[in-house]
């Protein structure tokens, strides 16, 4: 399938990018309130975002559509939440891999789409990587909040938490895409817009 992106698809990219970002921001703010599960915000949000991703892929199953949406989301999120270069390098890498995986199955195979979403959902870790790269600065900034807070944060920033968070995100993304499939089948396919 070598169809070009038309105006219709470009507008879809914008719309789905907007709702993806909106829901992502809401969940990350709510989850971010509790520092102990701060790094699991990506996992929680990927539960809800699976539906949007699946609907987007099924509506614009064209080459570069996932790449375009991903780059848009990562760029805006990177500018708003973390301006460190790691956000962009990691985010774009993840998005490219997701695009390649989905394009193998011609954007129609559910299994490959799920796999592609699982990779795509990892992009928030670009933001979290700031905590590892600038660990000292983060700890210095948190000094005014008292010693207890500093020790909590110090305990949080270790490799084990990172691995747990990545595994949790992968599992949640899988569940999210299953939910997405269910909702798509129940509502959107019947109405003929999926």
């Amino acid at each position, binding site marked *: 399938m070598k169809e070009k*992106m*038309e*105006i*219709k698809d*470009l*507008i*879809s*990219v*914008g*719309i*789905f*990018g*907007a*709702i993806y*970002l*909106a829901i992502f921001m809401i969940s990350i*703010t709510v989850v*971010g*309130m*509790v*520092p102990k599960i*701060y790094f699991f915000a990506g996992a929680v949000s990927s539960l*809800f975002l699976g*539906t*949007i991703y699946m*609907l987007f892929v099924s*509506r614009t199953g064209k080459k570069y559509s996932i790449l*375009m*949406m991903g780059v*848009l989301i990562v760029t*805006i999120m990177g*500018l*708003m*939440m*973390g*301006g*460190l270069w790691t956000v962009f390098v990691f985010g774009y890498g993840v998005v490219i891999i997701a695009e390649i995986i989905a394009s193998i199955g011609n954007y129609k195979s559910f299994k490959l789409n799920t796999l592609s979403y699982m990779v795509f959902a990892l992009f928030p870790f670009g933001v979290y990587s*700031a905590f590892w790269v*600038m660990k000292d*600065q*983060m700890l*210095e*900034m*948190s000094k*005014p*909040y*008292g010693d*207890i*807070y500093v020790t*909590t*944060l110090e305990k949080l920033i270790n490799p084990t938490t990172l691995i747990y968070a990545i595994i949790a995100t992968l599992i949640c993304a899988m569940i999210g895409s299953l*939910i997405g499939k269910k*909702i798509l089948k129940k*509502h*959107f396919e019947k*109405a003929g*817009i999926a």
Partner: protein
Amino acid sequence: MEKVKLKLDPKTKILMCILVNIPAYGIANKNFLLPFIFIALGMLFYNKLYRQIMNYLIIYSFLNIIKLLTPILPTVLVHMFGTLIISFEMFLPFIAYGMVLIKTSSINEVAISLDNINAPNFIIIPLLVLFRFFPTIREEKNAISESMKLRGVNFGFKNFIIHPYRTMEFMYVPMLFVLVKTGEELTVASLTRGLGGEEKRTYIKDVKFKFIDVLAISLFILLIWICFKMKGM
């Protein structure tokens, strides 16, 4: 003759949004960010956007008051707000410049400005649609909540915990339907206006990269450089 209003090109504003992140993340001492925030507020003041300035100052002082109160507040609250404030402090300057961009130049002008440097369609269209749809999403969310109340469905936090899947479904399905339909309408509307044609579009408004833009950007970069020099001292 009418007094000519000083106006920056949207490209300059976008560039400022990006550049301001360098000091925001590169310098630990947040006092260095004050001049940048001051410049943005000045730009808002010049365009008579007093309400936006008030809102910004309220957020800013709220965060700083919490920061000052941390020794007194109970640890639970400190834990709750700490991470939030640290990340908020970093993107406060960005919010100021984003406000300048969105409030002082219309979406139309941004499109013209990007088209002038021959940015491809696949960058311009998704970007503009994205910003156009943020307010729509909020409106639709309120409308769906209202209509779901009639059927006895409440999107409160409690329901979200008890019936996560059902609440999500009730919110998502109408929302996505509306967005897909609006997208289709938008496509038709923009095709009618000649978007995506072969010819280059012409514009009534005159948006150009002028000398003042060059001046503004150079001064901005100079300020960032000075901040980094001062930091070392």
